[in-house]
């Protein structure tokens, strides 16, 4: 029966039960319970007191976040509806959840990797749908985006098996079985080191062993702060990685909502990595997302250092404007607001700001000077940056300069701006600023295609890095 009907039925029966209780003497013995047949009918098949709960497993139960996990259930009734639900808390304490509806097989089993979800946060056969399909629980704060702050502890995801096809956050549900899965951003043995030397604000992650290692400089966008979770993952893959903060961090100079550091800062950070005793100095690459892409291109063309390869994700070739820091305080450079557009919900779309035609010409880097392989990743539904146009510009310039072989483009239909390591949910929109006014920005991307893009891009990025940094 539908979940709603079941709830009504339960409510009706509870009333009946209460009346029975009122009319009867309360005797704590077996016969009391046998006089309440309606309650017994209600009792979950599994909780009759004779059979154990169904068996639920998740493998591997402790994994890196880019590893697939396989969830299986057995000792269930055959051909029965069940709901698989996942819940976890972000580092900020927000509850995120997802669910999928399955029908068990003739032998009373199901498998998340082989079976199709017929309802819920995702549809079809999607082994990791329960993870990338997560959303903030009803009643959550507006505009949330899931980002790991403390990479030294895992996300703990409670995966539950529920009876029937239910919507866990709305319906009354009975948890039949549960497993806890740990999702890590860090492999065992990876060391995290704060780098506050020479005013460089960052976190260095070193793989285990004596090295020396190839290395990566890791750059994020105007959201600011120090985002460690991609660098920690790269270190878990054997690359010494430095995540660098350049805006919106308490240890950086000047007001937090502007970029108060320049080429010398970025150059110093790159050289910090090159000069590290455990790093192979001519095998250092750079990865940048959004504005971090611009920083990447600047370091490669204007600072004199020689990176071994570059990965640019959805970012501009010229400078866009500082809009806010990670805590939501805003200072707006009025001259660039003219390129902001809004959708009918009032969400701000930054895309036009980075159209090559709108970029201040002096800020556009000398792309023809690029001398190392560059992989550019485009989300075709990117609403925050004009990724396609910027990619075109880089490709065209390199072709004219006789270096087309340096350029690789990965383009993903339906993917948005925030192409991050795989299996984390995409934020189609999230809170950008609180003051002077609350702004939610549209990043773009639809759940399933964005998830596919993240999975494919990550694998290709790692192959690209291995091909260029380990030869």
């Amino acid at each position: 029966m539908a979940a709603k009907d079941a709830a009504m039925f339960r409510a009706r029966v509870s009333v009946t039960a209460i009346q029975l209780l009122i009319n009867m003497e309360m005797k704590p013995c077996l016969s009391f319970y046998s006089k309440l047949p309606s309650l017994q009918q209600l009792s979950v098949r599994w909780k009759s007191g004779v059979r154990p709960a169904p068996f639920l497993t998740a493998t591997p139960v402790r994994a890196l976040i880019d590893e697939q996990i396989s969830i299986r259930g057995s000792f269930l009734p055959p051909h029965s509806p069940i709901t698989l639900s996942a819940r976890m808390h972000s580092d900020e304490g927000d509850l995120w959840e997802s669910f999928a509806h399955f029908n068990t097989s003739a032998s009373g089993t199901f498998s998340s990797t082989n079976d199709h979800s017929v309802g819920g946060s995702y549809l079809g056969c999607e082994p990791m749908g329960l993870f990338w399909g997560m959303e903030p629980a009803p009643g959550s704060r507006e505009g949330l985006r899931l980002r790991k702050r403390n990479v030294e502890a895992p996300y703990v995801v409670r995966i539950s098996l529920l009876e029937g096809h239910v919507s866990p956050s709305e319906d009354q549900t009975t948890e039949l079985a549960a497993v806890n899965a740990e999702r890590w951003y860090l492999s065992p043995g990876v060391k995290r080191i704060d780098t506050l030397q020479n005013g460089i604000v960052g976190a260095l992650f070193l793989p285990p062993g004596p090295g020396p290692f190839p290395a990566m400089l890791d750059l994020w966008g105007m959201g600011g702060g120090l985002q460690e979770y991609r660098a920690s993952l790269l270190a878990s893959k054997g690359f010494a990685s430095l995540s660098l903060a350049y805006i919106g961090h308490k240890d950086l100079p000047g007001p937090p909502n502007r970029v108060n550091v320049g080429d010398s800062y970025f150059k110093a950070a790159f050289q910090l990595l090159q000069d590290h005793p455990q790093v192979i100095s001519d095998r250092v690459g750079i990865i940048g997302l959004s504005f971090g892409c611009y920083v990447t291109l600047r370091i490669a063309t204007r600072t004199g250092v020689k990176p071994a390869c570059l990965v640019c994700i959805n970012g501009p070739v010229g400078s866009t404007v500082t809009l806010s820091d990670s805590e939501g305080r805003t200072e707006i450079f009025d001259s660039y607001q003219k390129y902001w557009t809004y959708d009918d919900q009032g969400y701000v779309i930054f895309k036009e700001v980075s159209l090559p035609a709108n970029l201040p010409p002096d800020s556009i880097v000398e792309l023809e000077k690029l001398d190392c392989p560059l992989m550019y990743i485009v989300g075709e539904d990117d609403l925050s940056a004009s990724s396609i146009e910027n990619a075109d510009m880089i490709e065209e310039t390199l072709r004219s300069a006789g270096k087309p072989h340096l350029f690789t483009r990965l383009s993903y239909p339906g993917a948005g701006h925030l192409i991050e390591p795989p299996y984390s949910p995409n934020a189609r929109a999230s809170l950008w600023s609180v003051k002077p006014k609350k702004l939610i920005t549209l990043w773009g991307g639809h759940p399933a295609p964005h998830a596919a893009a993240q999975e494919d891009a990550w694998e290709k990025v790692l192959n690209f890095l291995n091909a260029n940094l380990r030869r």
Partner: protein
Amino acid sequence: MERNPLFVKLSAQPSRALVDERFVVLVQNAVPGSQLTVHALHQCEDGHSWQAFAHYIADAMGTVNVSEDSSLGGTYTGTEAMGLLWSLKPVPGSKPGLRMRKKNVQTPMLVTISVYQGHQTDGFVDQAPLATVVVERWYMAPGVRRIPVTEYGLTATLFLPAGPGPFPGLLDLWGGGGQLVEYRAALLASHGIASLALDYLTCKYSMETKKTVSNQYFEMAYRVLAEHPQILGSRIAMLGLSLGTSITFRTAVYSQVIKLRCAVCISGSHRQPHNSSLEEILSFFHSNADKIRFNEENEVIWRDLLLPIPSDSTNKVEVGQIKCPLLLIVGEDDQNWCAYESAMDMKEMMEKAGNSHLLTLLSYPEAGHLIEPPYTPHVRSSQFRDMSTRQIMMVLWGGQTLGHARAQEDSWKKLLVFLREHLYSSSKPAPLSHL
């Protein structure tokens, strides 16, 4: 094209796993055809270091896949995905008679896996490896709860799986070494069975009163399981190893209080006075002390203690009366107990009595006495303190490393299937002789 060996890539997937899960160790980007040594190092809780290593040749792609390629030498040879763990041996210069057992099950075993250039056999500590990874091997899955139990005077620890339950339960008994050994119970809880690790030799009661526990002690342990709101009283099993099997056989056949859904006996024997207490069992063993032998290395061989097995039912638990499924796991090279001979005799007894459909017998030709969860190292002998006599001696357990490792892996897999079938299934207990 010469590739710089510094770019060699090493990975072990998964890097965090339960101790009974397999991993894949992969070396990539090495010089094709080059000689490589894959090395594992573990420092256990008592500070001793254990190592394993294997010699490989990188293929045309510069890859070594430990799960698919053949080791040409080292602490194991041939294709052995988990050889780096089960062939771990104390490093040269270690104290003799070491045995690896995890005491704190809430932290993982850390194993450092490295790849070295060339075919090395020693001096690993002095060389720089080409690459290193660290793996964590856990006895507890996330969400498993560890609950010390002291009610009813017990010295025990309960491990509850994650989730609402209800769960089947299991009483987990080790042998004559005593102590509260938690790791197998923790692992079983990680597989969905609420398990109680019970110390019955060096428990608080025995240490204080200097007396052996009575049958009631085990009945109380059973009660803790049966009364727990998240455990099903009708689905409780008992698992014993070595001396623990004596308790298990006795309980399965004679106990009026403990109703077992199924029983597992590893490396044990049914040889004991009928329906006796632990004290009587121990006296029976001591009365045969003249049968103890020593080998050339002065290692104790206890296996003759209970031999020969009489053809009548004198001093043999009447397993023909057992009413629940029984899984027997024995090593044919067991030098500590006559487990194999006992198992053969039990099979015959059950066939005569007509209840052999309840018996599943797993017998391993090269396994010794200590058949434990897989991928932990085998020792043929080790220092052992017998808790009933308080003497420390070097005891010969038996087994050949390769055969013993295979036995541990195979028996554990089948043990889990056996327990799941009988404890989770809704149908009546069925024989699993097809295992």
